[in-house]
């Protein structure tokens, strides 16, 4: 292999293409041979060849990059396998799983943080997305421009560069967001009250969730004791463990454009006649939204909820960029995937990391199944 990294990957890519084409022909010929043995017509044989020939890249990739790794990681999850340690790998049974589920503080923290994002972050995100979708659904000039503006954050979203810009804006002392909050607070007393009320509610709830994490509620008591925030208080976005999760929620709300598009599609699918009939009957827009649009949108809300929750388990970039170097507060915002990365690649404990991967996988499957089961209970597919 050439030493030059660019040449190296070009050669590897070329060899990969050769390998894929060869395996496509191989799989195609085998399939055609089997079809021939089973007495298929020449046309059918030709189709069998073509089908396997074209699908081969996925089939081969599925075996190499999904089935085999999953199999190995399942096996390793029951061992104490470590890369770069001379020790022999031994079978430890379910010990890894036991440790993770019952003794591992980091894993527990990641679970609770996901719970926070699901209970507090997702409703905010879905609410804003729905609000924007309803506004955009009014069919007016320039709708496309607004749509683009609201979707752009999804594209930029988790790019390191953009996250660093957020870090600049969220700076407690000199960041623009707190600057604006400060000047609005001085200018309008009602805003000051609102700001302090929001800070209070947020800190109490965050302290409660941190309490769930550690099992000790000292912080919650401290926040309650401190009482209603002082007049000059501002949010401590990337500085305090009480605020780290809220910063992530802020990023989620900023990137609500994808959910908004889903809601727009949902609103588009609502028959016009329903609204027209209700209008004739004298229903107010407010009533029409809650009695017609909202029930018909529940499948879309449900869809966004599932996707959002699975997404919350996988948040990585914001935590890495905003908090990685601030070790004491990382655990207050860590996601399951971040924890998996941290655990697997700091000490290369492959066995332990594999067990975490399997737990994440099973959790995602359970969430999907449960939510699909529950959807029958509260999702309205039609109201005729």
């Amino acid at each position: 292999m050439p030493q030059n990294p660019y040449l190296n990957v070009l050669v590897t890519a070329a060899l990969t293409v050769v390998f894929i084409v060869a395996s496509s022909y191989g799989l195609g010929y085998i399939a055609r041979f089997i079809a021939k043995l089973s007495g298929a017509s020449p046309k059918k044989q030709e189709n069998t060849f073509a089908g396997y020939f074209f699908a081969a890249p996925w089939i081969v990739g599925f075996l190499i990059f999904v089935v085999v790794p999953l199999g190995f990681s399942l096996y390793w999850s029951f061992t104490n396998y470590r890369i770069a340690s001379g020790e022999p790998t031994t079978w430890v049974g379910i010990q890894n799983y036991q440790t993770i589920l019952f003794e591992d503080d980091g894993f527990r923290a990641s679970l609770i943080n996901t719970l926070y994002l699901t209970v507090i972050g997702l409703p905010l995100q879905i609410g804003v997305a729905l609000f924007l979708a309803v506004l955009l659904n009014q069919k007016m000039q320039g709708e496309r421009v607004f749509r683009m503006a609201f979707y752009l954050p999804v594209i930029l979203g988790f790019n390191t560069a953009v996250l660093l810009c957020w870090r600049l804006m969220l700076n407690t002392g000199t960041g623009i967001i707190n600057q604006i909050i400060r000047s609005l607070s001085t200018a309008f007393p009602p805003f000051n009250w609102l700001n302090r009320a929001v800070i209070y509610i947020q800190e109490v709830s965050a302290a409660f969730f941190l309490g769930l994490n550690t099992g000790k509620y000292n912080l919650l008591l401290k926040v309650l004791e401190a009482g209603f925030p002082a007049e000059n208080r501002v949010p401590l976005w990337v500085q305090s463990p009480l605020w780290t999760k809220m910063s992530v929620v802020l990023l989620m709300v900023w990137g609500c454009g994808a959910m908004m598009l889903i809601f727009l599609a949902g609103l588009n699918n609502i028959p016009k006649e329903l609204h027209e009939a209700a209008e004739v009957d004298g229903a107010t827009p407010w009533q029409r939204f809650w009695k017609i649009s909202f029930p018909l949108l529940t499948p879309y809300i449900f869809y966004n909820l599932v996707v959002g929750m699975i997404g919350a388990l996988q948040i990585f970039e914001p935590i890495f960029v905003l908090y990685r170097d601030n070790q004491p507060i990382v655990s207050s915002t860590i996601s399951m995937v971040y924890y998996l990365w941290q655990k697997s690649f700091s000490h290369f404990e492959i066995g332990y990391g594999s067990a975490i991967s399997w737990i994440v996988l099973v959790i995602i499957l359970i969430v999907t199944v449960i939510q699909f089961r529950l959807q029958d209970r509260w999702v309205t597919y039609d109201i005729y």
Partner: protein
Amino acid sequence: MKKYFPMIKSIVLYTVLTGATVLMSFPLFWMISSSLKTVEETNSPGVVWIPQNPTLEAYTAIFQNQDFLRSYFNSVFYVTLALAGTLISIAAVAYAFSRVDWPGRNVVFFLMLSTMMIPAQALIVPQYVFFNKLDWIGTFNPLIIPGYFAGGAAMIFLLRQSMSQIPKELDESAFVDGVNHIQIWWEIILPLVKAPMATIATFLFVGLWNSLLTPLMYLQTVDLYTLPVYVSTLYNINQTVQPWPTIMTAAVLTTAPLIVVFFFAQRYILESVVVSGLKG
């Protein structure tokens, strides 16, 4: 009063929407504005909306920063290489699932859809071991090669939907003329799905360009860093004063390709997000 109601309504509507647009695009504005400031201005306790004397100092400096330029080249290089292979293999697999009738198709298709539930991150640990065995750590290979095996079930699904809508008669008449499957795929079907291909290319581009986790795991030395990894090293907790104009200049240059691509592809994207999102 009643006759003014629609007008008031649309004024309120536009005001709210414009306000939301300003809020949503504010980070971009702030990024550009900060890149033109001096270090003192970005760290000052007072608000500097637009720098008094915009300076391009950070830009001239970053164009002389070899590490930054190299990481930019690395990103362009790896994204191009990965995109080409991924796109072609996805097009091939989507063809098999939509235009060819073969035994086992439904089973394989169902398997493919079910992989959408497997989070990519659940595979990072065993894949790391696998690439380690191949001696691929510290090369671009792990970021590029997996995509060549039609990486991305959602994308295959999206393209399959578009290909299924092309009338069957088109390739049947070609068969009569003695044209084979590879020619039909490349010369007849692919030209007809240019728009969905552009959409998929955009999604793949955005994903690859923003990707942080895998480059972080596999590219161990500065000379291989892609943009997201390199840019993340610009912020250094050990410094008391962060070089924000430099960081924001790097940020502007990193996001520029994303914005350009989004601008040209937005029409397709905004429509297909809904299709793939709902039916996937």
